[in-house]
């Protein structure tokens, strides 16, 4: 006898040729299909599978750390990464630099009508890989679709949850005169990778984004026993913005040594061409740390032993300054301020 019962009574989602349309955000069958066949397929776990309006999570030990970040990068696929991985790394790093262990993520997607499902699948796969590598689970999500021309392909907002052991307290207001400042590696890679793609600049060695999850590096640093006062990941606005934030929060001055700041030659070359300052350019896989001077050598050794901290360096020191200025001794031998960026140097980088 012929079986007339169709499997699922649904035509499979055409991920190869299909495009996002308004029905994918409409709350009907098409939306459910997109969620189950694309998002859940790659991202599912026991929490997401609960399928309820909210997710019930076990409490970890210590205090809760929460962070949220929206990602609107253009282009969506760039040398060294894409918006999917970036949206995981960005939030994981914000939780990790608090000294916490990132555990859970939520993700909100705003999709533009007409966006190819194949590209969406690549992005979701990249998110799944990044989350898996970072040891975090995506536990809740949301999808909305906007009309063509009202978005730019995909926007992703992620929220991260982590737990911070009792007794650990890192904060931007804890830098004190005498402390030293460390960076985990070369600065400016991410922003320049995006810019070189946008401007079609080509270099002998292509500039790749440094997008990466820093939870492993931060865990090693926290376990080193060094007295770490502040950790931050210098994303938009670059090193300059992050250091100014810390200087203001702590009410201290910061003096940098330009010669000590790692910048890749190809990034420096691109900055020369485009008239940019590497210190203002975004990073997505770097952190800076402020620690007690006597612990700096130990912390530096631990950072350099980690693959994401191989090029770590001590780049400056904290000193008293009621005006909270960040200053730099230039390689040339003069001094200058390292100020916040005015306006925007590169739009839509993360």
């Amino acid at each position, binding site marked *: 006898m012929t079986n007339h019962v169709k499997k699922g009574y649904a035509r499979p989602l055409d991920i190869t040729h299909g495009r996002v349309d308004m029905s994918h955000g409409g709350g009907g069958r098409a939306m459910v299909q997109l969620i189950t066949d694309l998002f859940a397929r790659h991202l599912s776990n026991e929490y997401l599978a609960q399928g309820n309006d909210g997710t019930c999570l076990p409490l970890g030990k210590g205090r809760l750390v929460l962070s949220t970040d929206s990602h609107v990068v253009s282009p969506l696929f760039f040398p060294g990464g894409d918006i999917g991985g970036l949206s995981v790394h960005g939030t994981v790093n914000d939780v990790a630099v608090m000294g916490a262990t990132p555990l859970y993520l939520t993700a909100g997607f705003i999709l533009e009508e007409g966006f190819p499902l194949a590209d969406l699948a690549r992005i979701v796969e990249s998110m799944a890989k990044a989350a898996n590598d970072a040891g975090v689970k995506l536990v809740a999500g949301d999808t909305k679709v906007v009309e063509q021309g009202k978005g730019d392909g995909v926007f992703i907002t992620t929220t991260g949850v982590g737990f911070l052991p009792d007794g650990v307290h890192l904060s931007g207001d804890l830098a004190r005169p005498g402390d030293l400042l460390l960076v985990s590696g070369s600065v400016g890679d991410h922003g320049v990778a995006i810019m070189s793609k946008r401007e079609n600049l080509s270099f002998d060695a292509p500039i790749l984004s440094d997008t990466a999850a820093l939870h492993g590096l931060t865990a090693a640093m926290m376990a080193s026993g060094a007295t770490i006062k502040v950790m931050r990941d210098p994303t938009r606005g670059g090193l300059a913005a992050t250091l100014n934030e810390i200087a203001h929060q702590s009410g201290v001055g910061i003096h940098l040594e330009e*010669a000590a700041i790692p910048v890749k030659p190809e990034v420096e070359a691109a900055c020369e061409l485009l*008239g940019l300052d590497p210190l203002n350019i975004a990073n997505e896989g770097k952190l800076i740390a402020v620690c007690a001077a006597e612990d700096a050598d130990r912390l530096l050794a631990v950072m350099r032993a980690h693959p994401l901290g191989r090029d770590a360096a001590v780049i400056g020191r904290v000193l008293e300054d009621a*005006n909270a200025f960040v*200053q730099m*001794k230039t390689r*040339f*031998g003069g001094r*200058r*301020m390292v100020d916040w960026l005015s*306006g925007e140097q590169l739009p839509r980088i993360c």
Partner: protein
Amino acid sequence: MKYVDEYRDGEVAQGLAQAIAAEVRTDRRYNFMEFCGGHTHAISRYGVPDLLPPNVRMIHGPGCPVCVLPIGRIDLAIQLALERGVIVCTYADTVRVPASGGLSLMKAKARGGDIRMVYAVTDALMIARDNPDKEVVFFAIGFETTTPPTAVAIQQARAEGLKNFSVLCCHVLTPSAIMNILESPEVRELGTVPLDGFIGPAHVSTVIGSRPYAYFAEEYRKPVVIAGFEPLDVMQAILMLVRQVNEGRAEVENEFTRAVTPEGNEKAQRLVSDVFELRRSFEWRGLGEVPYSALRIRDTYADFDAERRYGLEYWPVRDNKACECGAILRGVKQPTDCKIFGTVCTPETPMGSCMVSSEGACAAHYTYGRYKDYEASAT
């Protein structure tokens, strides 16, 4: 980085600093104007003044094309974008220059104007090709260095029969601006602005050569050294100026022998004169009307002249009364002499054009040097 680090070498800089310190006379002051905003930026960014003796002072000149753009010119571009529905393309910081009615090109963009930042005039041509149903205007600013590419673009547009492309020409000329400063009452009478010499921009001279400066070096007895934009170039130029002053010479010297000749690039000059002619007069922010100081598009290329194409009429607009940009651009005042510097006028909320571009004297001092004001007031 090869071919760059050599010109930023701290040890060589120390050597030059010692040479300058050894040669300056202690019984006099040396006031040199770096004409070009590129030099202003390099001096601030690398901290060059820290390597100079206290009696050598650098005065920031008007050589920032964004800074000297008068409000009326920006108004014309905004008018094209908002009232004529034209796609306006322009270079970088131009979009931030404050215009009339609290607008700027950036704010006009937020009101729906189609304004695009381009890195090269060829991008504007591309936009015109890609949007055949829209009119595209390239808002052309800059000194002699950016003029030849604009000329090429206009020739190319004609060769291609590109009907929807035109240029709002605001190209200005370096020598006439320096002459205007030397002719200004502050410099001529009683020497309110004591100028002992100029550093001339090398990139301009790669086009026009070093010869155009010979006249006023001789006529006004002011030494000129044409210098590159790396900090060591600037240090070397300062040393050369100090020597000229000490020896009573007023010559045009060339520090940038790696690219500048007396004649300049004659092919580029021919190209420019094919497309452009001198304007009788042009308003500069800070300097006012300066005769024969800018270019306009020749009649033979009138179709590509946005001013003629759209019947634009220029209306001069006064700067904000409290703004000292004018005096700062002429070297009469320093940024800190301005009441609104760092209070009302900041890089985020620029009132005057010197605060807009990173090459402007006020923005450079704000961004790189304002900590020194606190140090000075503490001592």
